[in-house]
């Protein structure tokens, strides 16, 4: 409990600083957001009115307080380009991106974990070096390049999907899932490499522990020992990097959406940046950062649920 309080206070501190950074960064915009919105030929009265509307005449702290107050109420401002509340724009796109990220996460886990087990099981020099080389290469692969290669192979050559023609899941579940599958794999491959690199070592460490010998002495079969005893212990160090992996998957989908023209938050963000739609970009940055912080907190809490030893301190 005390741990949770301490953790929460540090998360709130981080949240606060993240909002401050985001706020300040958007204060140093070169050029005039008003000129961007009204064009160069706007007259003085119009400019003054908009200045008031955007509260640019207020001091920094007041504006921050207003901005954060509104943000807490779910109001992230109005997009200049779309003339719509930013939060609405984000929420629609977030549906798509969260699906993509979720599929990528599932793929990472259902491939990464068994692969770690298999490579850890055959603990010899060849497999050790082979796994190490493959995971190093895997981690170095840029997911957007993998995405392009997959577009070529599965889209253009094997014709498993039509590149550029995104199908929403609501419209056709199977096709929608199929379309998200390839970008998800592209995001997942480097993350699988990360999982294998860490989990394989953790499994091999755990395999030499005394309690594993005890488990065998009970008459458990080796797959039972692996799942019930070794894996549980080996996953603990991996869970600590899980938050980072999820953040990376979310970050990776920002770019991959561009490769596959998926209308998620990544495309929206790029559109916002290209159009210098600052309220949109600012709102999205804060939104995404918040989600990632929340996920990290969640992973952290989960970690303390899984490992009973930590509750003591």
């Amino acid at each position, binding site marked *: 409990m005390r741990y949770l309080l301490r953790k929460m206070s540090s998360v709130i501190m981080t949240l606060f600083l993240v909002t401050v950074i985001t706020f300040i960064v958007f204060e140093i*915009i070169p050029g005039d957001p008003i000129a961007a919105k009204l064009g160069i030929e706007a007259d003085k009265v119009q400019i003054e009115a908009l200045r008031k509307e955007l509260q640019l005449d207020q001091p920094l702290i007041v504006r921050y307080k207003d901005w954060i107050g509104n943000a807490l109420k779910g109001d992230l401002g109005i997009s200049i380009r779309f003339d719509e509340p930013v939060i609405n724009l984000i929420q629609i796109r977030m549906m798509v991106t969260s699906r993509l990220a979720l599929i990528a996460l599932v793929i990472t886990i259902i491939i990464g974990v068994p692969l770690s087990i298999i490579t850890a099981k055959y603990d010899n020099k060849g497999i050790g*070096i082979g796994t190490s080389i493959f995971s190093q290469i895997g981690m*170095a692969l*840029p997911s957007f390049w993998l995405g*392009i290669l997959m*577009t070529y192979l599965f889209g253009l050559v094997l014709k498993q999907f039509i590149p550029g023609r995104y199908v929403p899941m609501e419209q056709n579940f199977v096709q929608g899932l199929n379309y998200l599958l390839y970008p998800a794999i592209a995001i997942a491959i480097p993350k699988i490499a990360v999982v294998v690199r860490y989990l394989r070592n953790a499994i091999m460490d755990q395999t030499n522990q005394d309690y594993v010998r005890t488990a065998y002495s009970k008459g458990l079969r080796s797959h039972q020992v692996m799942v019930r005893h070794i894996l549980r212990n080996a996953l603990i160090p991996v869970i600590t990097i899980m938050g980072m992996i999820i953040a990376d998957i979310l970050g990776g989908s920002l770019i991959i959406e561009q490769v596959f023209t998926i209308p998620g938050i990544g495309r929206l963000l*790029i559109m916002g940046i290209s159009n210098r739609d600052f309220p949109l970009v600012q709102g999205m*940055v804060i939104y995404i*950062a918040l989600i990632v912080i929340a996920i990290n907190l969640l992973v952290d809490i989960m970690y303390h649920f899984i490992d009973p030893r930590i509750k003591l301190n």
Partner: protein
Amino acid sequence: MKKRKYSFNFYIGIVIVAFLLGIVIVSFFYTPYTVTQMNIGKKFLKPCWEHLLGTDHFGRDILSRIMMGSQTAFQVGLISIGIGLFFGILIGSIAGYYGGIVDEILMRIMDAVIAFPGLLFALMFVAVLGQGIVNTMIALGIMSIPQFARITRSGFLQVKPLKYIDMAKSIGVSNFRIMMVHILPNVISPLIVACSMGFASAVLAEAGLSYLGLGVQPPNPSWGRMLSESQMYLLKAPTYSIVPGIFITLSVLGFNLLGDGISAIRDPRK
């Protein structure tokens, strides 16, 4: 056996990095063709003797563009790491040396910078400052500050309780000198490792930003932008898409392995 495996990483890393560095150096004096030289009649050539890696949609030699792109990648990597290293050491030293509230505030800010996932922080900067190679380097540099700050600070925390620092202070050695002579040597090798790894992620990030059209702008050549240009002609010229990706992967791999290898040599237990 373990030790050999790690130095194996180190050697492979060295070889890859040396290879890429060689390309960078050669590109300053020689490229097979000038990168801007278009030849519409020679569009989308497959790799052949005249054009080892083929040509692009304007008939430009891909090998020459890759070579020029390596300059950009290394430039972005070096300068952003330089920015990160300079401010990281500065902030880490101040935090570690003074401790207390100063430390708390600085490190909290560093935590907050790390809390932005992936490219988001860089994207935010590019959105505000505008696109281009300089802003890309600044954004990636700022992104890498916390890494270096944390390492520097941890070095201070390790060394601070030791007696000889007190002695140095008591005989009137200046704060700056204490930092430079007594503490920095202790963190130099983790910093080198972080530089190598950071270089790898800077190259990857630059490629990502440029792919999105928000990083390096023409006429500066960039592997990432080559990828985004090539995507339109994927069916016609797949090698055009494959080659820049290989070079990005190779750079990231080389610097990661190098960093890994250095840290393994430094601490064989790991």
